[in-house]
């Protein structure tokens, strides 16, 4: 293709724009139905039928919930810092959605004679980007809790911040072991490595790393058993106590988006991303676009299984106490992650000698 140095490839631009729109709307739609799934899963685990009135099988329930939230009065407390109060939920939502930029959703598809990669940006520091953006998410909680000008919210915000920082550490350490294996930070590359023949998914090489990662993911998403920032019984709703209407909706919603994104990231890093198990993609290269679609379906199914595990855990175990949370994070997970790192390093050295 003839191209000048500074010429913008408008087609690429348009293609990425469409991809971004699709992925963001898909994430939002999935998060919408995750709220519904959560209620259904909770109900079924508790021998109840769950919401079943709005539409067939209650399928319109999330829209009814959304409509209800939008219709509610927007209340900004007198003593709240108005701008930060509005910024909080916006930031939480933005941070939750930004992560999906680097996730490889599938292989290439060929449309209108163009090779379109199903990934918004395959940056070579993919994982670092994910970490950076996920850490931004805690600002949403911090700012919201502080701007509410309410002691409970402030307490919850402090809890949320310290929890996120503590668990990010163990999460990062558990990932370092994985990165020592893959030798790259690029998510697309990590998936391709797992797809190679004779190479298993990373979970086989890093079971302990995955365990630490999933525990930390629970903490990062503020899900039970680590939902201390919004513990209803001690802090009555925590950081979003003063929020109403769609601002509250954004906070609640960002939790589900976060959950979806962490599920996808776990699937990408440890479970082969868009790889279909026991199926040789390279041998069926003539399937073309269908192959890519099967890949997308595969990563989605993996994500759904993880989301179910998130919910299953939530409706099984009670919340940790705050000191237990900190003990678990600093005294168990961090040393465990360090040991895992050492063992991985030793094994790599042994095989490479």
């Amino acid at each position: 293709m003839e191209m000048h140095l500074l010429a913008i490839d408008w087609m690429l631009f348009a293609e990425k724009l469409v991809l971004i729109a699709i992925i963001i709307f898909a994430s939002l739609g999935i998060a919408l139905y995750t709220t519904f799934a959560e209620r259904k899963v909770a109900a079924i685990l508790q021998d109840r039928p769950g919401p079943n009135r709005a539409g067939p099988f209650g399928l319109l329930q999330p829209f009814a919930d959304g409509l209800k939230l939008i219709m509610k009065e927007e209340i900004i407390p007198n003593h709240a810092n108005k701008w930060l109060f509005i910024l909080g939920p916006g930031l939480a939502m933005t941070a939750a959605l930004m992560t999906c930029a680097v996730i490889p959703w599938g292989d290439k598809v060929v449309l209108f004679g163009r090779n379109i990669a199903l990934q918004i940006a395959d940056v070579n520091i993919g994982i670092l980007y994910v970490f950076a953006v996920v850490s931004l998410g805690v600002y949403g909680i911090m700012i919201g809790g502080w701007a509410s000008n309410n002691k409970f919210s402030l307490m919850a915000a402090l809890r949320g911040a310290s929890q996120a920082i503590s668990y990010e550490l163990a999460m990062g350490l558990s990932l370092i072991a994985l990165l020592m294996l893959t030798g790259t930070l690029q998510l697309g590359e990590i998936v391709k490595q797992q797809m190679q023949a004779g190479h298993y998914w990373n979970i086989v090489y890093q079971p302990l790393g995955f365990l630490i990662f999933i525990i930390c993911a629970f903490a990062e998403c503020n899900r039970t058993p680590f939902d201390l920032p919004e513990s209803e019984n001690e802090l009555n709703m925590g950081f979003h106590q003063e929020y109403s209407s769609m601002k509250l909706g954004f906070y609640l919603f960002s939790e589900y988006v976060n959950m979806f994104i962490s599920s996808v990231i776990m699937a990408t890093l440890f479970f082969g991303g868009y790889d279909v198990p026991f199926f040789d993609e390279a041998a069926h290269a003539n399937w073309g676009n269908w192959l890519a679609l099967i890949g997308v379906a595969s990563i989605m199914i993996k994500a759904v299984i993880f989301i179910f595990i998130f919910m299953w855990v939530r409706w099984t175990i009670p919340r940790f106490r705050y000191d237990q949370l900190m003990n678990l994070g600093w005294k168990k997970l961090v040393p465990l992650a360090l040991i895992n790192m050492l063992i991985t390093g030793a094994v790599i050295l042994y095989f490479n000698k």
Partner: protein
Amino acid sequence: MQALTTRAKAVDRRPMTFLERLYLWNILKGMLITFSHIFKKQPTIQYPEQKRPFSPVFRGLHVLNRDEEGRERCTACGLCAVACPAEAITMEAAERLPGEENLYREEKYAARYEINMLRCIFCGLCEEACPKDAIYLSETFAPASFTRQSFIYGKPDLLIPDPKTQPAELAAAKGLS
């Protein structure tokens, strides 16, 4: 110390074992328990479509009775109001005038008779106190409403249909038709 029940268990204060301190094993056990509940039968009754039958001694909304000729039985003696522990009943008595014998069974009758269903605890003591078989508790309950005023049931709400002039309504109210 003597245990109060046979099911009492002493609290185990031993320090947690290594397996317990890992949490994971116990969490997994709990998750298996919740998972098994997916296959359990749901006891839910889908209310407006499915209704659970009331027991024959169910105490629901009150009705004021009439005799076979359609005359009101209540004589406004006030015994129900006295018996009521919730003080839910008020009434005003009036004397039966000549020519009203087909309306009221006794010489005195209740011109106004009100039960506040928000106060009522549906104990059935009014039913037991009545010497004239005039008040009974039926097998329905008060429907939801937006105003408190609508829970004060007057005579028109309480009286059963007249067996002489409205036999069809009476049969419907008894659930016979």
